[in-house]
């Protein structure tokens, strides 16, 4: 018995054709979201081929063939020429057997419909459908699929530009050592030159190492050990300026020092703690930095006993409101989320007059993240 329940359950023949089409489209989508490359073309073309059902299908960029699927492999060399003509025209072109010279007996490929792939008003490649007859239906289908692929590629472009934006922010943050900090540090060092030359020299070395780390250009990630070393240098320089008014406690579990973290993900938090927490508080205050080992995760807490902040302001800073003073917070939060997933954002506990505690959780291992 041919299982009638199943037929009812899945709808009519037309419904199921729609489902198949949608399913094939959804299979092709993830690869295309990486942009138009030989690799993504190779991985998506099988599903696009299933979608169209023609004897052969090719994807090219503007320069040449990226992937071919189906019969008639001997036509591969011709696809670059077809692409060039279509890119030139900027719209869908139909080619017949005079354009596709073929001497192989029994070859199904006698015609081709070539549609341009367009992102942001620019032709980036072509979709080439090969068949025996250049029918109007085939042209329409090729056109529609090319439009859909173009939409996916535009999304890929969007992803890429979001990543570029993040990178630009990190670069900005590197260059963002505040002029005040440089001025104040050098001033503090200068005040020691006569009274305590040894200390002045040490501080100058720390200052040089600190700037070298912060201006580092390579690598998106670093180890927690490196990041904390830079934080310590920063605090050393700030202490030279504030003296006893700035009290610092560090409690670091040595087990978590090798953890890979995004570059400059702790230091902005410490800078915030010093600036917002202490500079405005009378009689100085204390900062504590704690790193703990929680089996598969590492937990880092930066805490100050300064004036605190209105939670709503922090919420807006985390949401990326650029008009606020807490520059680093939103950026660090965003980078932690893109690196480790949405579960790993910053947690900020604060209230006016109650100090601030920022907690960072970092997994010990995340695919693709290494210092």
């Amino acid at each position, binding site marked *: 018995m041919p299982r009638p329940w199943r037929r009812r359950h899945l709808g009519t023949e037309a419904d199921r054709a729609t489902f198949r089409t949608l399913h094939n489209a959804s299979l092709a989508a993830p690869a295309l979201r990486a942009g138009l490359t030989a690799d993504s073309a190779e991985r998506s073309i099988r599903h696009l081929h299933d979608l169209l059902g023609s004897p052969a299908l090719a994807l090219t960029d503007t320069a040449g063939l990226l992937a071919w699927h189906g019969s008639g492999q001997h036509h591969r060399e011709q696809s670059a020429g077809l692409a060039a003509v279509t890119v030139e025209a900027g719209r869908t072109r139909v080619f017949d057997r005079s354009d596709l010279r073929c001497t192989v007996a029994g070859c199904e490929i006698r015609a081709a419909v070539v549609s341009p792939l367009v992102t942001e008003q620019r032709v980036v490649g072509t979709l080439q459908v090969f068949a025996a007859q250049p029918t109007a239906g085939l042209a329409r289908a090729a056109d529609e699929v090319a439009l859909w692929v173009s939409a996916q590629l535009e999304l890929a472009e969007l992803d890429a530009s979001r990543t570029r934006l993040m990178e630009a922010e990190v670069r900005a943050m590197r260059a963002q050592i505040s002029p005040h900090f440089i001025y104040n540090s050098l001033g503090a060092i200068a005040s020691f030159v006569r009274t305590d030359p040894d200390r002045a020299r040490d501080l100058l070395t720390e200052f040089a190492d600190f700037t070298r780390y912060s201006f580092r250009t390579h690598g998106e990630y670093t180890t927690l050990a490196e990041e904390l070393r830079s934080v310590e240098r920063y605090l050393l320089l700030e202490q030279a300026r504030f003296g006893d008014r700035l009290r610092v406690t560090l*409690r670091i579990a*040595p*087990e978590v020092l090798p953890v890979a973290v995004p570059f400059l993900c702790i230091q902005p938090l410490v800078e915030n703690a010093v600036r917002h927490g202490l500079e405005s508080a009378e009689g100085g205050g204390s900062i504590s930095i704690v790193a703990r080992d929680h089996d598969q995760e590492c937990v880092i807490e930066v805490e100050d006993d300064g004036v605190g902040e209105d939670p709503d302001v922090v919420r807006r800073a985390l949401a990326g409101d650029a008009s606020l003073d807490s520059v680093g917070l939103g950026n660090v939060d965003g980078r932690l989320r893109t690196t480790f997933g949405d579960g790993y954002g910053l947690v900020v506990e604060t209230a006016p007059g109650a100090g601030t505690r920022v907690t960072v959780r970092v997994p010990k*291992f995340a695919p693709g993240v290494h210092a």
Partner: protein
Amino acid sequence: MSPGLDAAPGIVAIAFVTVATLAIGTWGLRFSRTTSDFFVASRSVHPRLNASAIGGEYLSAASFLGVAGLVLLNGADMLWYPVGWTAGYLVLLVLVAAPLRRSGAYTLPDFAEARLGSRGVRAACSVLVVAIGWLYLLPQFQGAGLTLRSAVGAPTWLGPVIVGVVVLANVTSGGMRSITFVQAFQYWLKLTALLVPAAVLLVVWAGDSSPPASGAGGWSVPLASGGPSGLYVTYSLIIATFLGTMGLPHVVVRFYTNPDGRAARRTTLVVLVLLGLFYLLPPVYGALGRIYAPELAVSGRSDALVLELPRIMVDGLLGEVLTGLVTAGAFAAFLSTSSGLSIAVAGVLSQDVTGRSRRLGGVAAFRLAAVVAVTVPCVVALLAPNLGVARAVGLAFAMAAATFCPLLLLGIWWRGLTPYGAVAGLVVGGLTSAVAIAWTVGVADPDGWVDALMGQPAAWTVPLALATMVSVSLLTRDSVPAHADRFLVRLHTPETLELDRG
């Protein structure tokens, strides 16, 4: 033995170790991390300290009690157990330690995911971590029952329950795993607990004008009995222990603490020295037991040899003190190894099973996972027959050797490994090992070739899994991960080399 005056040193020792472990687990953070001065970040864990910690976590009931019992029972053949458990670190040192550290993986499933870029392989590895962890926990719990019965005459079920509760309290309250210092201390405690009584007993033996073992002959000669199947069992044991060490979930995570690949190698080297030192001692107990306590072998209580020998050989207060010392050492062995294993299993469970539930938070998910991770082997330990501590651990090693060893070796040294090949090899290795273990537990009297093959399966399961992994990988050559070459470069280039590792 009836509980009475005899039980006093045992009760004191067990109470001391239990309270100390719980106290350190609860307040340890405050002990080991006082306010520090600057540049704490440059103070990473030294290889010597880390090696002691690995030793502390690694030396389980099987090492502390099982080896001496086996030597008493079966003679010099059984020395392959301690030799293999040590030499496993040699294989780890040469082939795995530094590349594994450079991979940045924390657990074995992490390594599989990073190397092969596949969630499927990760899932298979997670299942195996749980299986091997439980298999290894089982004899720890059974050994605890044995120790309690031997030391204070308590019923056998009490030991697993006490160890289970202490481990659970420790793991859920924050975990002693996190503190390298505590695990390092455990190694030196175990070494002392075995070394001091052994020295005293040797002096007693020398003062007794050094009597030779009764009924000598074949006992001290390797392979004196058993014929060809004895030879097979020995080779199979060597393969299981040499290759199984790298697949133990609680050992691998310790390597993450090393700052780089070079430190990982140095750590492994020190582990070799420390284990070599420790494993000199159990055979001493075995040999002395042969002279002074052969009745333990006859009555089937050979695993209790280390615990009972001091009292048999030395009378009075000194004997009681020594008994207390070995009991404390044995209990420390259960607790440290069980904690490490439970955390490893609970970590995998909470990440891949209970963590998926949206209703549970991170901490709640981990606690639920810890309860499952401890309860299952604890209950099984109460129900299942006792295989002998060292033999049961040997089976866990055999399973690790047949699954994670091929994955690690091929993953580190062969760029052609594919996700399909890895899964196929893991499934074949895991299933054949599981069948062999079920056979061994089910069949009462091990005799004949089939039982030898099943009781010590590594010699055929490891090559089978390795061959499966290679051949399926060759068949699915198209699916070699795109980043394989780059990943292998990361694994094998020293960190000091300037190189773009992205």
